[in-house]
Structures are given as C-alpha cells and as structure tokens.
C-alpha cells in the first residue's frame, strides 16, 4: 500500500469514527439517564456521569405505570396495517404507472411526487376536519388511513422506477398464456419486486412507528395512543420523569432496530438494485 493510500484510509476511518460517536452521543445520554434516580438527575448537574447504581426499575416502571405495555400494542396495531396497506396499494399503482401506457400517465406520477413535497404539518387542520366529518376521529382507522395515503406518494415513486426495470417480455409471455392482469401482478411482478418491497417496508415501518404528529392530532383517548405520543405525555409543565421517559424511549427504539436487523439483508440488496443498473 502506498503512503498516500494509508493516509487516505486512516483519515476516512478517523472521520467515520468521529461522526459515529457524535450520532451515538444522544443514545449514550438516554442510556445513562434511564438508570438514574430522579434524585440523581436533579441534584447532579453532570449528566454525562455514569449512574450511581444500575437498576432496571425504571424500565419496569415505564412498562407498567407509564402505560408502555398498552402504547406498545397500539403502535403495532397502527404500524403493521399501515405498512402493509401502503406497500400493497403502491405496488399496484407503481405497476400501472410503469407498465401501462395511457393518457396523463406522467401527470399522475407527477402529482404523487408533488404530494411528497408538501410538509405534513401544513395539512394538520384539514386532516383533523376530515377525520371529524367522516366520524373517524379518535379511531385506529383514522391514523392508519392517513399513514397509508401520505406514504403512498414516496412508495409509488420508488416502486414505479423499480418495476420499470422488469422486462416487459416477461409480462407479455404470461399474457400470451392467457393470464389475467391481476394474476400477472400477483405472480410475476410482486415476487420480482420483493427486494424493493423489503427495503421500503423497513423504511416505512421506521417512519410510521416513529410518527408523533398524527397520533397526537387524530387520537384523543389515552388507550389508543401509540408509544411516541404516550411517552411524551409524561412531560409536564414543570417536571418530567426523565428516567422513565428515557427508559421508555429505549424500549420503543428497539423495535425498528430489530426489524432492521432481521431484514437488513434485503435492505442493502434493495438499495443496491437501483445503483447497479
């Protein structure tokens, strides 16, 4: 190895390590805070110190008294159908936009992409009003429907580009054999799109799981809230139980992490797919 190359690799690792440490720092603070008593948090100004004694008491408190067990279930009830629904509908839409030629094809795609550019927060009041008029306010369905529709913009864009790379000859061969269009979608397009769906699924799962705004705006009842909203409702005017909030956040953050670790094989595959073309 030449000297220059060593220097190059060395500085790359150095910068990478510094950036990783910066990113991990908040996690480190949450990690130490989750083990400290309120007394220690309030009295000891040096929050980077390790806790006096390690106890899992606050994790238990977050789970039981903090109501995390209920919020956790709610997050699943909201996230899983939202991800499945958004992926399925977007795959259908992406397939149509990629493989059928019809008037305004590009325009419809453009609308989906443009919808992506509008910040969610701008739609807070209209969406709140719609959910009231439809009688969906304060139901799981309201949050699920809005997640599905808002995520479709990005998903259709992503999947359409992916499905375009599938050779049209494959589909034509199936047509010659007399297969219906829906069957072509189910049996040829969907299996071939699997890596992209898996990658997108991980992303969507993380985004929807971490959503705060819609859970806050569209749900009122405490027993319907997802984990993000539930945790924040432990923050008061003057006081917050930071140890319980930290412990709860760590539990909540573990789920997207597990999902990622399980599916990461597909994730990298799916992302590479576009690059090598």
């Amino acid at each position, binding site marked *: 190895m030449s000297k220059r190359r060593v220097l190059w690799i060395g500085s790359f690792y150095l910068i990478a390590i510094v950036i990783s440490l910066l990113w991990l720092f908040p996690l480190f603070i949450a990690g130490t805070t989750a083990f400290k008593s309120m007394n220690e948090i309030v009295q000891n*100004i040096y929050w980077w110190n390790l806790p006096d004694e390690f106890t899992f008491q606050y994790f238990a408190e977050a789970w039981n008294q903090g109501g995390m067990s209920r919020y956790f279930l709610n997050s699943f009830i909201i996230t899983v159908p939202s991800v499945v629904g958004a992926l399925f509908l977007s795959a259908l839409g992406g397939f149509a936009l990629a493989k059928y030629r019809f008037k305004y094809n590009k325009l419809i795609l453009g609308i989906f992409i443009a919808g992506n550019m509008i910040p969610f927060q701008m739609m807070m009041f209209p969406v709140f009003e719609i959910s009231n008029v439809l009688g969906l306010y304060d139901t799981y369905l309201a949050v699920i429907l809005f997640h599905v529709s808002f995520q479709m913009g990005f998903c259709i864009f992503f999947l359409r580009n992916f499905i375009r790379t599938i050779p049209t000859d494959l589909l034509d061969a199936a047509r010659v054999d007399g297969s219906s269009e829906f069957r072509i979608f189910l049996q040829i397009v969907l299996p071939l799109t699997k890596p992209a769906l898996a990658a997108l699924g991980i992303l969507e799962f993380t985004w929807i799981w971490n959503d705060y705004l819609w859970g*806050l705006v569209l749900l009122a009842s405490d027993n319907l809230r997802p984990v993000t909203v539930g945790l924040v409702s432990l923050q008061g005017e*003057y006081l917050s139980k930071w140890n319980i909030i930290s412990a709860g956040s760590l539990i909540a953050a573990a789920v997207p992490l597990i999902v990622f670790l399980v599916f990461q094989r597909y994730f990298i595959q799916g992302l590479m797919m576009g690059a090598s073309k």
Partner: protein
Amino acid sequence: MKKLSSSLIVSVLVISFVIGISLAGLAADKKKVVINSYMADPAPKETLKQLVNRFEEEHPDFDVTINTYPHEDYKTLIRTWLPSKKASPDIVTWFAGERANTFVDKGLMMPLDDIWGEGKSFEDYFPKAFKSISQFEGETYFLPQSWYWYGFWYRESVFDKLNLEEPVTWKQFLDVCEKLKENGYTPISIGSKFRWTAAAWFDYFDLRLNGADFHMKLMKGEVKYTNPKVKDVFEKWKVLLDRGYFLDDHTSYSWQEGAKFLFNKEAGMYLMGQFIQDVVSDEKVKKDLNFFRFPIIDASVPIAEETPTDGYMIPKNAPHPEAAKEFMHYLATQQSQWFFADNLNRIAANRNIEETNYGPLVQKGLRMINRSDKVTQFYDRDTKPAMADKAMDQIVKFMVNPGQIDQILQAMEAQRKKVFE
C-alpha cells in the same frame, strides 16, 4: 408457511379491533365524562387520577376518563378541540384570568352558574378575590382548583452559616447578595432556557416599583412599553446584572437545572414558584428550603404578589354537559379541593379550608398572600399569548445584553401595537 404468517397477522388485527370495540361497548350505559388534562407532571397527574377514582366509587353510574397531554402541546391542541362538535371533551384543565377569557370571548365555553347546588353560588365556595379571574361578562366560566405563590427560595443552613436574615427591603436584599458573593456563592440562580423564569423578575420589579394597577394596564396593552416607568423596571434590574449577582450562562439551563445550583449550595437564592419543592426528593434538602417575599423597593406602593391559578372549564361543544357539571360540582367541594392541595402542597381555592390545616411553609405562603393588597397571575397568563411570546424573548435578551434597554423597549412596544391596536 408464508400464507400462515400473513393470516396470523390479519387475525391478530381483527381480534384486537373486536376487543377494542367490545370494551368501548361495555361502558356505554354509564354517564360518560371525558377530561382532557395538561397535568402531565407526575405528582398532579396521579392526584387527579385519585380524585376521579374517589368520585367513581361514590357514583358507580359514572365513567370518567382522563386523557393527559404533554403540557406544551396541550396549549396548541386545545384550539382544535374547542370549536369541534365531535372532538370536544367534556372538561378541560385550564388557566385562570386572561387565558380563560380568550376562549370565553370567542364563545367557546359554557357558563357554570348552575353547578353550585340549591341556593348556593360561587361565593359560597371561593373567596371574592377569585371572581375577577373566573367570571367574565357577569357569568362564571372558570372553576378554580388551586394556586401557588412565588418567592425567593434559599437554604436555611447557608443563611445561618453566613449570619444572614431574610431581607425585607431592597437595601437589605443588596447586602445579602454582596455577602453571598464575598463568600464564594453565586447570589442568584436562574435558568432562563425557557423564558418564563426571567418574566417573573420583570413582573416583580414592575409590581414593586409601579404597583399592580399599572402592571395590569400594561398587561392589557393600555400603557406603552416605552413609558419611562417600564424603563425604571429594567434600570433597577440592571443594577443586579452589572454587579454580577446572577448565575453565569443561565440561558443554557432549564429552571430545574438552575435549581440544582441552589440545592448544591453553589447559589444562594432563586426566585421561583412553590412547585420548586416538587423537584427535591432529598429530604435533607427539602427541610432546609425556605423562602421570603420579593423585597419591598418603594414602601408607598401597595404590595402585590403573583399567584398563578389553575382549574377547569366546560367547552361549549361538550357532548355530556350534564354529567360534566355534576363532576365539576364535586371538584369544587371542600373535600376534593383539600385532597388536591394537601397532596401537592398547593393552596386550595376553596375558602372553607382552615389555614391551620396546611403545613408550616404553606401557611407562611398563605399569610404572605393574605397580607398583600393585590394579586396577579403571571406575565404569560395575564397578557395575550402573542404579546407574551415576543416580550419574553426581549426580556431574556435584556439579561444577556443589559446595555440595550432602549432597543428592547422599542421592540416590545412594536409588538404591543401589533397585538392590541
């Protein structure tokens, strides 16, 4: 295998929906009351829950639900619930005075004149002084729950060690600051990351120099911020800043982090609400904490104190107003008010609770308020939110750049014109 797992997911979802619906159905024949609450601080949250439990034990035909929201988000979200026929709760927790009046003005609240019981009225429950913060246009809209006082908190052991007395006058206060500084303490702690801690200082200087009547005129936008009397407020305050009595880098600490300096005996005094006691879990420190009144600067000005009051209101669109009113009646009773105040060391709004029931520090606070001529709520509770938001920025800016008083006053005046004219 794949089919099995997907059908498993579907069935789990269906089952959880069915359970959710049937649970909702079970409670359907009871009288429902939904309370949206900003009491997210651990202690008040638990106390409200216990109050509800006691009520449900006495009235088994009631089903009372509390939905707790994070305090800051609550103030935004309440604007979406109140005008909505479908999303409105039956009872909301809210603040007395100007903030309550804002919603009453817009016709979003329901009058409470029929909750007091046979032949009784507001005055049978609450002191006369509470009328001005609960009644608007002749009708009661706000049910006061409890209030707390502000004062200079200090540690008795530190004052004893330096042979210091609780200062009463401005001069004595300056002497105490000087002595603390000489002995290596930061005389005054403050954490102004969230700006209201600095607003308390502004309020008190204005109350002590110009009196409560002038202060309330200023809050209502009837006096210009460029008035020389307002400048006096900042000039007096500047004396303390110039002498370096305040904690360094206070803008990077929350109020709670500022309190650590007091608890650790690094700082001498802290102008703060009674809820500072909620933060101390160390019994030794708790017993060592005491407070004194903000010193008198001009003896000819009637004494005024800040007493922020919290309570409840019923929105106009409440789906179950009758049941909500029954619960409101329960909240006003002596027993409920005492239960809440006693648990949290607050002072109950109900007038029938004897002073001797309270602990020694609360009694001291109560006596201090009883000997005052006027009470106010707090800067961001007495003036309009848009005004408070900009002005508190300026107040903190003043603490960092005390030399810029004139620019700061002009910025505040510009905002007053925009909001009130």
